[in-house]
């Protein structure tokens, strides 16, 4: 580490992992550069439909993070960019970033999507080689030898709807007569050596003359073209849209509108099409197969396979896993951040042939720049976090399942897109072969996981759960679906996962333990037949209508290349190599890692690691925190004078034509002028664009506006932007309201423009009425006590204490035992074979020797008060004295212990021991262990059962494998039999499991419901019997010892939890604020947790989580003051009846009765839901922005008349 490090961190990979790291770091005072190679951040999570085990909508929970990252002052997004080189060392790296050309200016683009809408190209063209400007290819267009006629059984019926008019310019006409010959309606008058003219009565406006007139003369002029002022391409698109509606009944019939020929000749260049009596003639060798003619054809008369004899190459939408098509100009996905398209260099006609250019002509803000060049940039940072994520296994490598051959065999990620409401089928589960709704659907697990044959020896850890989720959601979408999941072991090892699987079973999902070896397709029905051996050893044949392959996850070649640039060590699968005690540090100092690239894992673990990596990457930079931030300087806020008149400004947005194409924006604006209080109106093309925002500030100033209403798009994405503009203009930001006339009007009522306009007027009126009632709200600021209280001194607590001390915070570490260390004192070795003893020793030394950490052993918390940033906690020390400590955040690391239930003779017989006992024997008494002739292990002994621990303890399977291997190492002759339900050796633990089987350890599955292991235990002899389903026979064992995997049970925290108001689940583990995205946060602000108090986990996972919890706490502790939202509930104390209704109603337990004997709601703790406001019988609680008068104003103004009456009419 160098002396003068930089307070900036680069994150490579903008999935959920990179986003979480970025937010934690940026909120802790570091400058963040977030590099993502895709056009937008979001990663794999953005592609998912729902998430397990809560079935939360993935996009709904991830999009607020996308928006927050996109808007954060201290996060610089570098999308569509790649790392090219990394030089330097920890503290000061120089990273070279290649920023690929988007051909769209990110700063100007407003994300309206019009470019994508008008782009006619939908196929990868065969562009001429060499490019046309070098060789005059166009000249040869008339010499085509291969022509084909496109016709249909329906005779062409020429349309004249919305016709364009054509005329011949006398001066330009060369008198050649080509137009005359081209016209199919005898509408062109021409005689040799005379100027042609068009007989308007006969003309249908097909433009055949226009296309036929040679390029060098251009004598046929087109007029009366709506949108023709933009470009011909835009005009063709507009007319096509109109004709599509008018001719909806004419599918498959040529209506001779001529759009295809004009498109091909005048916009795209190849001039491959000509109108004929029977339809269209195509020059096969001239067609570039771009598909533009098909996109404008209003009746689907044209089809790509008729146009060319080349192989059509549809442009597949990568985000939808290639299940539908995209345009060369493409916004990655609807909620993308940045919502800026990329123009594809491969498929864009403009970039390849210089024709077209339609998108540039529709863009109202001039964002499209075909001349844009890629750039390279060097950025200096102190640390790097590498979170590139994963890709899915290529299912074609397991050819026996027929993926890529049989249309109804899809991968799980494809199925995820089929389930998604914003996916290619709008969330309808339909078969790719025929679009029908499948009834029987099978999931095949472990495709590209646990498979040595294709070098995927590891378990992908997430597939059992996502398959369960997909089956669950599929049934939610269509109750007729009968899902079957074929699996080897059900690895639902995470928190609440087993419950989820149980619920799935109750919900009609069938689990069949069997691997299917091959899929056969019925070529007529496209149904799929599978064969497998069932639990009774009987061979079964079953037919399914659709098969989903649960593909594993893997590291991409691109990521391996990147890792090489970063010079970090990878294992043979491409996962990062890390140490069990520093799980987030790579082999290169200063480079950290998180997410599935650090071993397969699900979203909560990824999020937790991401926070952990933020901690690891920033701890050594703590002294330069805040040195590279940009601070906003704001003008003094104006204070409203008493009796000041309302001066409301209303901005009605066109959103390009997103709103204006349906809603009459001028009408809405004119109507706004009639509303009481409105003194200024405007109708910007794009209200959110940077220049509009600058103008808005000037307008507020110039017109002395004191309220602003924007009628535009969604407040979820845009309200923060407008509110910050208000604040920059010196207005309180709550003097604002928004009407969503895009999503709620133009988007959902495109076919009813009048009603959409009426609704826009109403929504705008309601927003104006509400703004008139707006009150300025203050965002309270509190001082932050920059120290952390850690409760629990095990590995989690000690690691957290050290990490927090490294960040420069004071730490109070409270441990109830006489010595630090916790449960790990009883364990011997980590999963990667390292001894715990020296690690614990050094950890304890460091904690005790750190001057920032104050350790209290034999101590307990007895009272606790305060709120985030300023807690006060009373602890009792061994001397019996109590002590009050002040701190800004709390970290709970109370841990768990090994469960010791009275089963199978445990706690009674010496020969029956737990895995922890066995490990102690193996390590401490190896000579004694060597003597063991035979050992039986029973997994899930008192785990996953109702009487004892009703959950999976996650670590026991790996523990059993590790101990079994150790015994085999000591004595290869020893016999080891493991009786199990599901071997849950997730992730890289699968490698040891395989090793164990190779070493001769027997794994015998048992059925806990029908044939649990029977143990006859006496002091001198053990006899165990179990039915082995693989031979369907009872087998007997008489081992020397019986080892039980009993699982872990959380330390009793009942009193502590009730004192700190922390919810615990029925098993006694703390409940996180959000199962997916806030895995180490507790629901109350300022409280965090780490380690086994959260749920069972191993030591590496515990350390990563401790780092995560400190990163989360650092977002609070690193601030001098905390600023809270202005929206919180307040009690008017004079009229409070102290009825306790609010105390009972609040889901967060915030209201309390204070010393003045009235209810008091601490603004720092209030979450702003408004439940107490509604419940209070005396109506003495109010909440800013959502007061009764606000809501009443909205309700009243809904009704135009009632509103006019109240406001004196207009």
């Amino acid at each position, binding site marked *: 580490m160098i002396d003068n490090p930089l307070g900036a961190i680069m994150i490579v990979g903008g999935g959920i992992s990179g986003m979480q790291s970025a937010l934690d770091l940026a909120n802790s005072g570091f400058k963040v550069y977030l590099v993502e190679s895709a056009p937008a951040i979001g990663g794999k999570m953005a592609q998912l439909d729902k998430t397990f085990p809560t079935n*939360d909508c993935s996009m*709904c929970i991830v999009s607020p993070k996308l928006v927050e990252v996109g808007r954060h002052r201290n996060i610089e997004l570098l999308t569509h960019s790649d790392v090219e080189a990394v030089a330097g060392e920890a503290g000061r790296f120089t990273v070279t970033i290649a920023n690929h050309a988007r051909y769209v200016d990110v700063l100007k683009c407003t994300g309206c999507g019009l470019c994508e809408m008008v782009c006619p190209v939908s196929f990868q063209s065969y562009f001429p080689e060499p490019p046309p400007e070098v060789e005059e290819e166009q000249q040869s267009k008339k010499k085509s030898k291969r022509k084909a006629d496109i016709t249909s059984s329906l005779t062409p019926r020429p349309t004249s709807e919305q016709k364009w008019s054509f005329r011949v310019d006398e001066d330009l006409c060369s008198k050649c007569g080509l137009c005359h010959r081209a016209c199919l309606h005898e509408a062109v008058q021409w005689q040799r050596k005379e100027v042609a003219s068009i007989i308007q009565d006969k003309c249908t406006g097909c433009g055949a003359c226009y296309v036929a007139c040679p390029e060098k003369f251009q004598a046929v002029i087109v007029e009366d073209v709506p949108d023709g002022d933009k470009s011909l391409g835009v005009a063709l698109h507009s007319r096509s849209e109109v004709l599509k509606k008018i001719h909806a009944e004419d599918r498959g019939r040529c209506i001779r509108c001529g759009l295809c020929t004009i498109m091909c000749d005048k916009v795209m260049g190849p001039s491959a099409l000509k109108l004929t009596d029977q339809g269209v003639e195509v020059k096969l060798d001239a067609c570039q197969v771009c598909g533009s003619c098909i996109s404008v054809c209003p009746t689907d008369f044209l089809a790509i396979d008729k146009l060319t004899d080349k192989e059509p190459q549809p442009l597949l939408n990568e985000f939808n896993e290639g299940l539908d098509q995209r345009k060369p100009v493409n916004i990655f996905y609807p909620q993308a951040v940045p919502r800026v398209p990329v123009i594809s260099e491969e498929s864009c006609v403009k970039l390849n042939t210089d024709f077209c250019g339609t998108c540039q002509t529709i863009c109202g803000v001039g964002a499209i720049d075909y001349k844009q060049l890629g750039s390279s940039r060097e950025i200096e940072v102190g640390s790097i976090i590498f979170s590139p994520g994963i890709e899915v296994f290529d299912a074609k490598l397991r050819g026996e399942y027929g993926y890529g051959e049989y249309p109804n065999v899809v991968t799980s990620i494809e199925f995820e897109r089929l389930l998604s409401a*914003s996916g290619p089928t709008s969330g309808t589960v339909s078969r790719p072969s025929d679009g029908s709704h499948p009834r029987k659907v099978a999931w095949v697990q472990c495709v590209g996981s646990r498979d040595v044959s294709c070098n995927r020896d590891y378990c992908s850890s997430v597939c059992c759960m996502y398959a369960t989720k997909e089956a669950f959601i599929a049934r939610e979408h269509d109750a007729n679906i009968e899902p079957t999941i074929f699996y080897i072991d059900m690895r639902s090892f995470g928190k609440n996962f087993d419950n989820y699987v149980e619920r799935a079973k109750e919900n009609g999902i069938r689990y069949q333990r069997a691997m299917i070896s091959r899929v056969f397709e019925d070529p007529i029905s496209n149904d799929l037949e599978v064969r497998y051996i069932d639990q009774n050893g009987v061979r079964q044949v079953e037919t399914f209508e659709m098969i989903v392959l649960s593909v594993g996850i893997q590291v991409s070649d691109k990521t391996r290349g990147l890792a090489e640039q970063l010079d970090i060590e990878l294992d043979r699968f491409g996962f990062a190599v890390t140490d069990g005690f520093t799980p987030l540090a790579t082999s290169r100092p200063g480079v950290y890692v998180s997410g599935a690239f650090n071993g397969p894992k699900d979203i909560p673990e990824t999020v937790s690691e991401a926070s952990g990596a933020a901690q690891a990457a920033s701890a050594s930079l703590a002294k330069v925190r805040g040195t590279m931030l940009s601070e906003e300087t704001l003008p003094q806020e104006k204070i409203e004078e008493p009796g000041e008149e309302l001066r409301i400004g209303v901005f009605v947005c066109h959103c390009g034509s997103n709103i204006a194409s349906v809603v009459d924006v001028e009408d809405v604006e004119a109507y706004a002028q009639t509303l009481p209080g409105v003194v200024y109106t405007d109708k910007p093309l794009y209200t959110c664009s940077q220049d509009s925002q600058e103008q808005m500030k000037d307008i507020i100033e110039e017109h002395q506006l004191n309220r602003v209403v924007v009628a535009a798009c969604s407040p979820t994405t845009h309200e923060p932007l407008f509110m910050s503009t208000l604040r920059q203009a010196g207005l309180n930001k709550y003097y604002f309201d928004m009407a969503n006339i895009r999503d709620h009007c133009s988007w959902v009522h495109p076919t009813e423009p009048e009603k959409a306009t009426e609704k826009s007027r109403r929504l705008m009126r309601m927003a104006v009425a509400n703004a008139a009632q707006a009150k300025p709200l203050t965002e309270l600021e509190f001082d932050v006590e920059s120290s952390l209280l850690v409760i629990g001194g095990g590995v989690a607590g000690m690691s957290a204490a050290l990490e927090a001390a490294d960040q420069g915070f004071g730490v109070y570490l409270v441990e109830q035992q006489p010595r630090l260390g916790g449960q790990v004192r009883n364990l011997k070795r980590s999963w990667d074979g390292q001894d715990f003893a020296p690690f614990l020793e050094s950890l304890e030394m460091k904690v005790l020797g750190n001057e920032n950490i104050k350790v209290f052993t034999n101590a307990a918390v007895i009272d606790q008060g305060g709120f985030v940033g300023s807690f006060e906690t009373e602890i009792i020390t061994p001397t019996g004295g109590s002590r009050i400590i002040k701190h800004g955040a709390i970290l709970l690391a109370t841990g768990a212990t090994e469960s010791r239930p009275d089963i199978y003779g445990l706690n009674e017989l010496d020969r029956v021991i737990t895995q922890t006992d066995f490990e102690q024997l193996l390590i401490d008494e190896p000579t004694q262990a060597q003597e063991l002739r035979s050992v039986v292990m029973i997994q899930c002994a008192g785990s996953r059962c109702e009487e004892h621990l009703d959950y999976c303890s996650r670590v026991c399977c790996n523990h059993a494998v590790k101990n079994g291997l150790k015994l085999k190492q000591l004595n290869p002759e020893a016999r080891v039999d493991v009786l199990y339900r599901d071997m849950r050796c997730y992730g890289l633990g699968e490698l040891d499991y395989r090793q164990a089987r190779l070493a001769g350890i027997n794994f015998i599955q048992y059925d806990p419901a029908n044939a649990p292991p029977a143990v006859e235990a006496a002091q001198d002899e053990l006899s165990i019997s179990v039915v082995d389903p693989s031979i369907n026979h009872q087998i007997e064992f008489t081992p020397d010892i019986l080892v039980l995997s009993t699982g872990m049970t959380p330390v009793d925290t009942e009193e502590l939890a009730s004192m700190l108001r922390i919810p615990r689940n029925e098993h006694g583990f703390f409940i996180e604020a959000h199962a997916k995205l806030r895995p180490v946060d507790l629901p109350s602000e300022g409280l965090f947790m780490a380690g086994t108090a959260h749920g069972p986990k191993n030591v590496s996972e515990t350390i990563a989580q401790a780092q995560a919890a400190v990163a989360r706490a650092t977002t609070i502790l690193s601030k001098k003051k905390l600023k809270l939202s202005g*929206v919180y509930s307040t009690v008017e104390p004079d009229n409070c009846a102290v009825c306790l209704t609010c105390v009972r*109603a609040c*889901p967060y337990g915030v209201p309390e009765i204070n010393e003045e004997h009235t209810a008091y709601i601490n603004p720092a703790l209030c979450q702003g839901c*408004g*439940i107490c*406001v509604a419940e209070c019988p005396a109506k003495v609680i109010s909440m800013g922005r*959502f007061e009764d008068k606000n809501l009443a104003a909205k309700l009243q103004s809904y009704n135009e008349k009632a509103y006019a009456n109240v406001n004196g009419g207009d």
Partner: protein
Amino acid sequence: MLPCTGRIDESLLLKAFENGADGVMVVGCLEGDCHYVNGNIRARARVERVYQILEQIEIGPDRVRMYNLSAGEGAKFAAFANEFVEIISTIGQSPINKARSGNSQPVQEVES
């Protein structure tokens, strides 16, 4: 728009009818999935009480209804809205609107 359907109380729902609504739709998170833990369950209870009040004062109980949706279910929301409009169209104008000059207002939706 409200932070949570839990913010709604009976008087607000009744005020909507007073202001000319023929029907009121309350749309909250899925039960068990409330962003604010249990606000939607409280809202449901209040909607039920308004249902009874509407019945007592003979405005018609079916004019108020609670729906539960996740934020990702746009199509379902549209289906619910259409269903509710259908119901209200069948019941017809609210007696309050009838009494007032017979000048009716279309269906009102209150979203959250």
